């Protein structure tokens, strides 16, 4: 653990020397994230129905617990077809895609996410009738989780 901490400190120092530009190049931009989400779910999402629970400050970016739930009856007539999760400050914007069926009973999932730095998580939910809902949340990361 000590060796890892030392490594991280050295990395942070190096990154600081190398300047912010390098860090910027290595991560996805909000535009790329939007693009990833719009390729996954076509249309303009509205706010609402989606709840995104995550810590405000994550000490360790290696595993940040996230809960996503979408309001829905989850019946054959009306259910959540898919949930797309993206992060706008990671090297790649995509986090995970969930495809549900009415057999899911409840459109709620928990997972643990890697976050390289302080950034925004964006969730888009696609209903079976094609309407889209979105929610987002900023998470502050103390130690990034993208490995040395």
């Amino acid at each position: 653990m000590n060796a890892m901490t030392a490594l991280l400190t050295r990395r942070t120092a190096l990154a600081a020397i190398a300047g912010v530009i390098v860090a910027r190049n290595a991560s996805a931009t909000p535009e790329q994230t939007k693009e990833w989400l719009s390729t996954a779910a076509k249309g303009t999402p509205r706010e609402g129905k989606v709840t995104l629970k995550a810590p405000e400050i994550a000490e360790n970016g290696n595993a940040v617990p996230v809960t996503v739930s979408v309001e829905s009856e989850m019946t054959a007539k009306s259910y959540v077809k898919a949930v797309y999760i993206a992060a706008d400050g990671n090297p790649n914007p995509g986090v995970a895609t969930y495809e549900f069926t009415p057999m899911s009973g409840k459109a709620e999932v928990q997972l643990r996410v890697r976050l390289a730095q302080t950034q925004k998580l964006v969730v888009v939910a696609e209903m079976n009738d094609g309407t889209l809902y979105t929610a987002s949340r900023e998470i502050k990361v103390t130690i990034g989780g993208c490995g040395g």
Partner: protein
Amino acid sequence: MADDIKPRIRVQNTARKGEVVEVKTLITHPMENGQRKDASGKVVPRMIVNALKVTYNDKPVMDVKLETAVAANPFMAFFVKVEETGTLKFTWTDDEKNSWTAESKIEVA
């Protein structure tokens, strides 16, 4: 290394008809994201579990696509609606097309 990979699931064994049951799953997997470098400075190639499929009595419940931003030893919790006695089946697949399955029976009282 592939021998260490073991799926774990936690779900109740009995349910009422129509009950929405919580399922918790975890698979021990390093989820190499292809960004990390080893001691000699070489990039460790990407190797992640990229899919989890869940079925109940062979009917699809949920399909998950995982990207590199999912933490190591991917933990997933979700729900399934149980209408009849049956078997929940889980299949994880990784970048090298290895797959692991796990099953759990749920009895409707």
